[in-house]
């Protein structure tokens, strides 16, 4: 039997019924994700009594794959006590001609006059350098969405930074 070596858990996909959980397990395993079917702790029993434990850090990739495959699920939660919500704090800093938006641990800087992304920084998961390469030098509204291209929690935070930057950019042109 193949030994699972990189399963840390910390994330829980919840479903309305057992068949959805089993379907999701098949889809995720077929794409190389390490997952576990588990009985969710009582406080997470929003639907059926079968949940799918995932590596929390892989939340973005898991969510996208299930959506792409039209596999229904109710939510993806963190099971780590006391840290169930993603950081929601967003800050902006003005530089001469540029704006930096910081969402949680991720930062995105754009040119105020052209709306071009000039840099991203922060984070520590492997998709962040990849997203940097894919996003820099593209217009805010033409750049790939980190939520759609990335796989990790860092990518979700960068997505929030991009959303905020787009809001600022659109506001600045209204």
């Amino acid at each position, binding site marked *: 039997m193949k030994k699972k*070596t*990189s*399963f*840390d858990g*910390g994330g829980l996909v919840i479903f309305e019924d057992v068949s959805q959980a089993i379907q999701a397990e098949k889809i995720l395993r077929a794409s*190389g994700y390490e997952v576990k079917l588990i009985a969710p702790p009582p406080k997470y029993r929003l639907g059926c009594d079968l949940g799918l434990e995932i*590596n*929390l*850090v*892989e939340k973005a*990739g898991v969510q996208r794959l299930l959506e792409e495959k039209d596999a229904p699920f109710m939510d993806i939660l*963190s099971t*780590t*006590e*006391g*840290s*169930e*919500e*993603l*950081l*929601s*704090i967003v800050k902006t*800093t003005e*530089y*001469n*001609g*540029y704006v*930096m938006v910081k969402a*949680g*641990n991720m*930062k995105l*800087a754009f*040119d105020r006059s052209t709306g071009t992304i*000039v*840099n*991203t*920084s*922060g*984070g*520590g*998961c*492997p*998709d*962040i*350098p*990849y997203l*940097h*390469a894919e996003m*820099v030098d593209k217009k805010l509204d033409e750049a790939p969405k980190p939520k759609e291209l*990335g*796989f*990790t*929690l*860092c*990518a*979700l*935070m960068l997505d929030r930074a991009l959303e905020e930057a787009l809001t600022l950019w659109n506001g600045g042109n209204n």
Partner: protein
Amino acid sequence: MLLIAGTIPQEGMPLVAGRVRLEGSNLKADGYSFPRIPGTGAMISAALSATDYLGVEPPFIVVAGDIGKGDGTRLIYRYLSENVSSIKPDIVTLHYCQPFMNLLAQFLKSVEKSEKPPQLIADAGAMYAAKAAGLAGKFSVFTPDPSEIAFLADPKATHPAYISQHLFRSEVEDVPNLIESAYKYNSAASVLVVKGATDYIARDGNIMATVNYPDVPTLEAIGGTGDTITGLVSAFVYAGVDPVEAGIIAAKSNRTAGKEVKPTPATKVSDIIDAFPSVFKKHLCEWSNICTAPSRGG
């Protein structure tokens, strides 16, 4: 040997293990070329700049392609776990990896079985895994940024995206307290080099130094300017410099190189890395006892 391990954002790139060199504007090892962009590439490039200047062996790198699926991370940890005893590195620096706690723990078990365990340095995903797995104490140096020191200070957080809001808010003005908490909860390496508006260098719970000059606020917007500090610290520790002093030198070098290039948020980290040799030449003797002319291959 200074061994640096981390992922490269090239899908399908196999595991590459070998000495790294600069070829044109790219890094190259074992026939594979990759750019000096934020992440492991910037970190390796900064380390290479320092080892080259100091006249010590260039880093031996263990890298693999990973765009966030964890495939390259698995290859790297497998290689390290199987080979660390035979390679016998003096320093191992772990960088951008999917934060798999189990794989890190397996690697650390291999390290402990080594005849001469290396000093361990971590940043980015490897640092997240070390903290979340309760293994931070096995490391000599962590190089967190302000949001990451808030993560280390939060005993319940398993990833910087899940830090308690109040700790995240305090990151700007209250780094000393966050450092204290990180040590209190055994979430810190022996030495912390906290990169930020003011850089803090701490050892075993005590802040040993701060660096806040030259002040170059634009560096925060430039991806990779934290990675360069990790690379410089690694190289200087490998060259025999005490980790606290290495942290101070790295912080001063990064700021000074940043100032020299007159950066905007659009500046590339490779431009800053290219300024390191002239910064070392002008300032290293003043900042440390490294005053002799470097001799290549020494």
